[in-house]
């Protein structure tokens, strides 16, 4: 390919056709799900009836965002090897979720991760703190997704930014409001299958001229752009920076509310465990394929052409689709990217609604006493509030570079939600004060340090220097949150919480049946 001849951004018939098929299919699913969504348990946890394999697809669907699909492919296309650093970082959180979090979470909680932390501690302060931690993560993640959605859809379909936000917000609202977790789960499954299938097909097509050998493709890229594309570049500057980013990526996954919430949709701990295994396989495979797509784009489309369409390289995978599969295939991949955004936003909104309705309204304002009808109503009102908020935030941050907000969401998740979750299930002496102060310390320190970092001070505010040289605060904030949680717990012991640990331990392993009636049903 030479020059920039692309139909990207032109209103494409095939893209719209594929897109309409996806929307009608998912709305039909939503209609079916709406008839099955009569209780709060069905709304927030699909009644606990999702199988391990289905949840594996849905977890992968929640996690594989357009940012990772288009962003990593773009990073690989424009700088080669460095994209792999992100891929690896985003994957290694999953084993941690499997070993430390998934099963205890399933056995101890109902709809949110705050359930687990609040199990043996004082409900109100812990729920407020955990909801703040959860909602902070969800807000930053939502801003990144909504702004990304507006820009992408503008570039893919030539729609106005505001129109794009309105479409994403409305369709997502329909899924969540009427179909709850059942519809959201199936939207994730459909999206995950489409994205995995589409990306694989795209990778295969780009390997055809190279005899299906990825190494031949990589060699061609090295021949064109120099051998440094196969070696680490500028992304990681110092070991400190590398470890700091690594900590946030690795432990952030285990603190993302929309991911954690998915473990309540399966019937038991065994299914929770197998679902993470499937998800890790799908996501790992996807990242390896994305690496091929990035190199494929740099060879088949060319770096100059990619960066002339979008400076960040985000259109690399789509340009590749057009180069190797023509306009119909571009239409298909664009529709898949759109579906990806929709599904991730729906998952985030549902988990935010759970924090607002289940943790704050029912848990704090109603002291845990609210009837089924009220709970469901509040859950739906919370969904509407969050959908409006998502669209509002998208408008507010229009034109801003918000790529750093995903990193910020991971940093906050790794330094507030993850430490309290882990301490509450593994440490007998953990207390209410310890949990609240660990969350506050984690959220505040992560926000302040990112504010002081070059990401905000230099890149965003255009100051000549930053107060802090560290781009990602993980190396300070993750240990800080653990230390604060432990020290405060030791200074102010809570004998009642310690006494209840035996029950936590029992239920964590044996499940809910013999401690209390099962949460579902």
């Amino acid at each position: 390919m030479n020059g920039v001849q692309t139909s990207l951004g032109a209103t494409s018939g095939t893209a719209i056709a594929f897109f309409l098929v996806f929307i009608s299919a998912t709305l039909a699913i939503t209609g079916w799900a709406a008839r099955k969504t009569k209780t709060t348990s069905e709304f927030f946890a699909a009644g606990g009836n999702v199988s391990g394999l289905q949840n594996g697809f849905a977890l992968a669907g929640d996690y594989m965002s357009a940012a990772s699909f288009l962003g990593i492919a773009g990073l690989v296309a424009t700088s080669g090897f460095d994209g792999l650093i992100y891929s690896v970082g985003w994957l290694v959180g999953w084993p941690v979720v499997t070993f430390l979090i998934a099963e205890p979470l399933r056995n101890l909680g109902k709809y949110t991760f705050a359930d687990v932390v609040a199990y043996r501690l004082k409900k109100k302060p812990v729920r407020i703190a955990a909801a703040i931690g959860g909602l902070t993560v969800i807000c930053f993640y939502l801003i990144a997704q909504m702004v990304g959605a507006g820009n992408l859809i503008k570039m893919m379909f030539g729609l106005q930014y505001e129109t794009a936000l309105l479409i994403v917000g409305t369709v997502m609202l329909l899924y969540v409001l009427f179909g709850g977790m059942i519809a959201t789960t199936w939207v994730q499954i459909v999206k995950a299958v489409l994205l995995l299938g589409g990306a694989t097909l795209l990778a295969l097509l780009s390997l055809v001229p190279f005899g299906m050998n990825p190494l031949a493709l990589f060699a061609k890229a090295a021949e064109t752009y120099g051998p440094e594309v196969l070696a680490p570049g500028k992304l990681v500057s110092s070991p400190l920076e590398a470890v700091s980013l690594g900590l946030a990526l690795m432990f952030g996954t285990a603190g993302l509310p929309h991911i954690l919430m998915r473990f309540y949709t399966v019937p038991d701990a065994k299914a929770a465990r197998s679902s993470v295994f499937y998800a890790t396989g799908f996501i790992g495979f996807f990242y390896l394929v994305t690496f091929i797509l990035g190199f494929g784009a740099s060879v088949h489309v060319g770096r100059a052409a990619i960066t002339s369409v979008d400076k960040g390289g985000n259109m690399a995978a789509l340009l590749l689709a057009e180069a190797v599969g023509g306009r119909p295939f571009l239409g298909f991949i664009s529709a898949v990217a759109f579906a990806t955004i929709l599904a991730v936003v729906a998952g985030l909104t549902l988990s935010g609604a759970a924090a607002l309705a289940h943790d704050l309204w029912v848990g704090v304002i109603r002291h845990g006493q609210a009837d089924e009808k009220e709970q469901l109503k509040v859950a739906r009102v919370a969904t509407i509030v969050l959908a409006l908020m998502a669209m509002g935030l998208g408008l507010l941050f229009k034109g801003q570079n918000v790529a750093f907000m995903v990193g910020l969401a991971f940093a906050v998740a790794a330094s507030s939600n993850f430490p309290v979750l882990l301490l509450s299930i593994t440490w007998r002496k953990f207390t209410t004060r310890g949990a609240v102060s660990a969350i506050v310390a984690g959220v505040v320190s992560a926000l302040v340090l990112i504010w002081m970092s070059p990401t905000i001070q230099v890149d965003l505010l255009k100051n000549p220097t930053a107060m802090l040289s560290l781009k990602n605060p993980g190396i300070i904030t993750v240990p800080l949150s653990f230390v604060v949680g432990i020290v405060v717990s030791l200074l102010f012991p809570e004998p009642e919480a310690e006494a209840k640990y035996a029950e936590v331990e029992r239920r964590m392993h044996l499940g809910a049946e013999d401690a209390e009636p099962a949460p579902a049903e």
Partner: protein
Amino acid sequence: MNEKDLRRVAAARDRIARVLTAATMFAYFGFILLVAWGKPLLGHLLTSGLSLGMLLGSLVIVLSWVFTGIYVSWANRHYDVHVERLAGKSKRGGGT
């Protein structure tokens, strides 16, 4: 007696979870530190189109999945058996 059994099952799970978490962290932070410190080393070509860094990075991804698989198969074969036995016992004992 039952408590003791539970403690033993819990300890076995903790042990394997800790070892596998440590192994994952070792693999990942090892890779990331090599990226920071050993750029020329990772850029070394093993064969045409494949650098050491690409091999190691892909290996960390594959290993993460393999570790997850090791845990799942261990839990399915050993942990579940004990948990079911304990849960069954306590259910009868509790009269539910």
